[in-house]
């Protein structure tokens, strides 16, 4: 069983997230959302302005991902983005991480124990030198 086959896609969101940029962004990420069990991380560190259309787009992405048994996580929220998400009561719907790396790692954090042990075993066997 190959447990590393599903990639985590990290996308940086634009500085201004209005209806036009949200549409463009959605068009960009749609192929990733259409995959089986999509795993996406949106980096919001650059976001300086976000409106209702931007928040709506985030919810739509999440909804699409959930339909395919995947998830969308947010990372590095700028203060502006955090305030708007809090205002619209949507911050509680997403898993939010300090950095994109942490968010990406979190996707493997919920693996069943058996899978995690197998992953560790695979790593160990890869690092150990083979006997001559």
């Amino acid at each position, binding site marked *: 069983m190959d447990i590393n086959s599903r990639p985590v896609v990290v996308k940086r969101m634009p500085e201004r997230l209005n209806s036009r940029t949200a549409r463009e962004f959605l068009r960009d990420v749609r192929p990733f959302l259409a995959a089986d069990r999509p795993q996406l991380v949106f980096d919001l560190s650059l976001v300086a302005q976000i*409106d209702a259309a931007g928040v709506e787009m985030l919810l739509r992405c999440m909804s699409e991902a959930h339909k395919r048994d995947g998830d969308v996580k947010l990372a590095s929220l700028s203060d*502006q983005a955090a305030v708007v998400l809090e*205002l*619209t*009561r949507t911050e509680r*719907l997403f898993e939010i991480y300090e950095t994109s790396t942490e968010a990406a790692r979190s996707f493997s954090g919920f693996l069943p124990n058996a899978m995690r042990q197998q992953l560790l075993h695979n790593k160990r066997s890869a690092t150990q030198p083979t006997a001559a």
Partner: protein
Amino acid sequence: MDIRGLLLANSENMEEKGQAEAPLATLDVAGKSTLQRMAERLQQYGISSVSAVVETAAPSGVRNFGLPSDVTCLAAAPDRFWRIAESVFNDMAQSGAELVILVRLGAYAEADFEKLVQFHLDRKERVTQMASDEQKLEIFCISASRRNDAASLFRTQLAHCRSECPLFQHEGYLNRLASPRHLRQFAIDILTRQAQTCPAGKEIRPGVWTAPGAMIEKGARILAPAFIGSMARVRSGAVITRCSSVERHAEVDCGTVIENSTVLPFSYVGAGLDLAHSVAGMGRIVNLHRDVTVTIVDPKLVASVSVASGRRLMTSAAEIVTYLPRLAFHGMFASAKSGQPDLQATLRQTPPALGTAAGFETSACDTEASHKFPNMVVARRYGHQ
């Protein structure tokens, strides 16, 4: 004895310049601006002749700023502010004033002006300054005949006086009012009666004040302590709680929760939002927890209501006129709804301000308990409820 009051309000003291177009002293807090409150305080101490100079970006002239009719108020452009203040002082001296109480807002201090004047007269001083502990306040008692001392004060923007100023210790309530955080704290102090000054309205329930013309729709909940300003509108399903203050002509739309926040005058907060620990208005939200100011461009979230009454009337009229056609249009083209609304589904909805995403089901409500007990709902509780 002829004692007069001179109030100065400009924005040089503000920590975050550009935070608001007007000086913080002219913004309403629980129904009245600091400027109004200080003018009334001076009048309470028997200082009947009070003048105010307020900095505005608009051309100079006489404007009211909500002050009592017997208070002379002058609007001054930023570059002419101190010159106008000095000339008002000189006019007072010429017209027979013996003492002038000069207050720059700035800080709001519930000063005992009687003791200040007595201290000044006992010591036969030219200028006496008020201080709280080590911090000097911009409240002075000036002998009107000492024009040179006054001129030196005005020309250094109250930083220095040519003669030595003894300090009179202030012992009452003090708020620096230098930032939105202080503005918020001032509202809390007024509503919890930490300050002597009161909310400008009628106490309809213990701890709930409403000003004349405030409209609270059926289904809205106002939990004490709270203040609703004149002509402010709190729509159905909204919750105002934890020392929140909705100032005059502000509007809080359906289902929005205002918690420990101030909604500034002529501001609109959209439907289904959650405004907490903030000062909102003028298209901005100052979040005090995060210590950040965010400009909101989306009028569905936070917007400004027109200050002009004619324009507001036109907007309301247009809303009324288009109400029935909108309903008819909605009835003809909207998809048919199921007969009985599901409470769980309703609770899972995101804010209506988000448009089509409003139907998105939140995972936050999909708790284990809600699956086990489908008829149980978990609602957020506010205050004593």
